[in-house]
């Protein structure tokens, strides 16, 4: 599946995950918590989809994975953004903003101005 074919949700999820990791390396659960809290429970992301996204990004070279210890000294898999990941975040953010703006214009348009 090429990046262009990803559906809306998938693309959205990717940009959210990249955004989460842009602060600091974190494990999957921390990413899930970041999205859940950041969205103010507005939308639900299935955790399974989140992990799939993480692993796919690892395959694509956007993130590196490494085993480390969590705050509670448990073994956890940590994900860190790579240079390619940062580049992806920038372009995904841009297209997300364009998308939001476009949707916004449509939502505020009246039939006369079309």
């Amino acid at each position: 599946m090429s990046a262009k074919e990803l559906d809306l949700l998938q693309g959205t999820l990717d940009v959210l995950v990249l955004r989460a990791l842009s602060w600091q390396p974190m494990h999957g659960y921390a990413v899930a918590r970041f999205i859940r809290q950041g969205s103010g429970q507005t939308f639900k992301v299935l955790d399974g989809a989140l992990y799939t996204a993480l692993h796919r990004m690892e395959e694509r070279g956007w993130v590196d994975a490494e085993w480390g210890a969590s705050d509670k000294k448990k073994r956890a898999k940590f994900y860190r953004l790579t240079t390619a990941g940062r580049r992806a975040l920038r372009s995904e953010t841009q297209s997300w903003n364009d998308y939001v703006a476009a949707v916004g214009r449509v939502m505020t348009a009246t039939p006369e101005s079309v």
Partner: protein
Amino acid sequence: MSVERDIDAELRFHFEARMEELVAQGLSREDARRQALSEFGDVDDTRAALREIDSRVARRRNRAELLDAFVHDVVYSARALRRTPAVSLAIVLTLALGLGANASMFSLLDTIYLRPPAGVVAPGEIRRVWSEQRFRTGMQFWSGFDYSAYSAIVRSLDGRARVTMYHAGTRRLGRGEGAPVVHVVGAPSSYFGVLGVKPLRGRLYTADEDGLMQAAPVAVISESFWQEHFGGDPAALGRQLDFAQGKVTIIGVAAPGFRGIDLDAADVWMPTLTALAVPPTRRTPWWQDSGINGFQVVLRPARNAREGELAQRVTQALRQSSAGDFRIDSTAVAEFGGINIARGPGKVSNEMQVASRLAGVAIIVLLIACANVVNLLLARAVSRRREIAVRLALGVSRSRLIRLLVTESVLLALLALVAAIAAARWGGGLLRNLLMPKIEWADAPLDWRVLAFALFVALSAGLLAGLVPALQASSPDLTNSLRAGTRDDAPYRSRLRNFLVMSQAALSVVLLVGAVLFVQSLRNVKEHDFGYAVRQLAFATVDFDSRDSVRDAAFPSRMRALESRVAAIPGVDRVSLMQFHPKGGFATTDYFPDADTTAHKKPIGFLTGVTPSFFETTGTKLLRGRTFPTDASLGGPFTTIVNKAMADALWPNQDPIGRCVRFGKPDAPCATVIGVAQTALMLSIDEPPTPRLYVSVDNPPAKIYTGRELVVRGDARRLPAAMKSVREILRAEFPGSIPRISTMSQTMEPEYRPWDLGAKLFTLFGVLALVVASIGVFSTVSYAVSRRMHEFGVRIALGARGTDVVQLVVSEGLKTVVAGVVAGVLLALAAGKLVASLLYGIKPSDPASMAIVAATLIAIAMAAALIPAWKAARSDPVSALRAD
């Protein structure tokens, strides 16, 4: 699998963390678990998806690691090789020799058998037509047809295939002795269509231009002929090529690379009639003459045609069209062959049979080289065992270590490949010239197929030669050597090395026996009495550029008049005149002997016209009777001389002298048999005894082609100078002619070639094998000696004499070699039947040959062992003991 373990660990951590958080928010453990699960979605699906992604990642990572390790191995190996340059060089040279020999042989066999001619579209589809035809030696597949047979083939296939034919020959371009010889192909216009040849410049000739009654004097030239003779000038189109047979205008240049479909590269193509202009003296034109039967017929079957059916049609057509023909009879079968003519189904020439044996020889050389390389690598692996033991102790896996050692040998093999390719470039050309010196080869000996073959062989040899020592050196008990010190040499390892030396010796014996057998065969064949005093004979005649009926009619008598002038040249003992050069052709006649020919078939009447001095000049012995009278003149009583084969066939157990042979018609005047000559060579050495009849050119009882060829006998050393004078005489007598002078030795050279080739190449390869094998003996013994210097020192300290030590070392080295020689003799006996048919006057099991080879090999091995043995004898007991 670690991928699954990692996924499970990651998900477990997720659920634990989430439940912990939910429990902290006040949920029961059970509720927390349910909520975490519902937030997650389908766990099994997710796990499967993750597994798929992760194993992809893992695979990719493994590949990258392997590549890294490989690069490291190569760098490490290169460094190791540089540390021991002498051993590395020895290995590279040995392998280069074996690879070069194989690449050269492959290059030759590839050009002849496998590589299709360049410039032909889909050459695999092209079929050559062969048919069984009668030869002096019996029925045999032949690819030449007369024109009416070709027409019958075309009619029989009736559109099921596109058929064409061609005739290849040579012509002089321009006039006189210095005129260059070009290869000319005469073919109808369909030739280009069937082969799919397009013009590079100009055009090809059309069907309108290649009629039977009238053809345009036009020619298409090859691209390389265009470059060579016209410098690639476009203005060459429209220019004329001035052949003695007539001028032709160049109308086109064929696409680059196309040089016809024979081994001989064609320069010029022209319509069949233009190439084979009908001489005015000849009553039957070539398309009605069944004697003009050298047309090669090729075809490209239509898409839906079945080859078997096509061949059957051709068989039918040939049987019908050749009714009453001497060559093709009612049982003859037609078959199709590939575009490479050597692939048959015709008879394989002796040269090619020798070449295929030599391919086997080249492989043996490579095996010997590999054995030697294994030996050298083993020696080095053993001397490096401390390093290897340390690596094993440090936890390097055995497979990793084997990979490292094999990389090293493959690297060596690749270095050898570079040297081998250079050698093959040279060797391939050399082999071509040795085997078929007259062929104008169309393309270079090396092409990508040869390179691919050489690369494949080099990699296999590298793997083979590296794997054995690598497995040995990395065996687990080697770690013991770290503890045990360095002096002991595990006995099994020296067994392996001895085995290698033994097999080298054995294979060398096989090659050397082959060399001796071929050298003997060559000598036998050269000393065999073929009825000609080969070394003392030379032949001389002249060719004319054009026809001149007055001159041509007077030619025989003028040649006859030259006999006495040539006889007066210093160095010339005897001169005679004969009809044809002994291998240049033959004439046949119908004849009626006063013998009972109902009991057995009358032999073909091969007829030779000679002058009276013929027999004492050539050395063909008269077994009975006398030669022709010197005072014979036209109108006198007719006489004839038969050879022994003819006498035995016509008058078995009777006296042939005084019998009667009538030539031409049953009621022709009687020619009395006045002598019986030895059965001399007719056309080739391997022919069966050929019956023939001799008549005098002065008073021929049959219509014969008159004497054209001067036979000169003289002292072998003075003959070349004498023939120069003969050339001057011919030039003066026939101004503007082209004298053609050859010695009988030159004429016989192609006949000797199979044995000559076998002798040269078996000897070359045999000596190479011997050198490599003695290096093997030398290095094995030297190595053993260096390991045992301590022991020798002790022995000498205890009072052993130097000669005792020498004896000990040499006898141990020789034991192996003698075992190898015995094995080699057995192998040579077994392989004997492969070459038996190619030998001359000697059996493959010839005991003298075996003995010579065995003695030589043992003597050389002894010499190779003596050098390290002397070193052992001189070992200083003090320093040997102090070293500990």
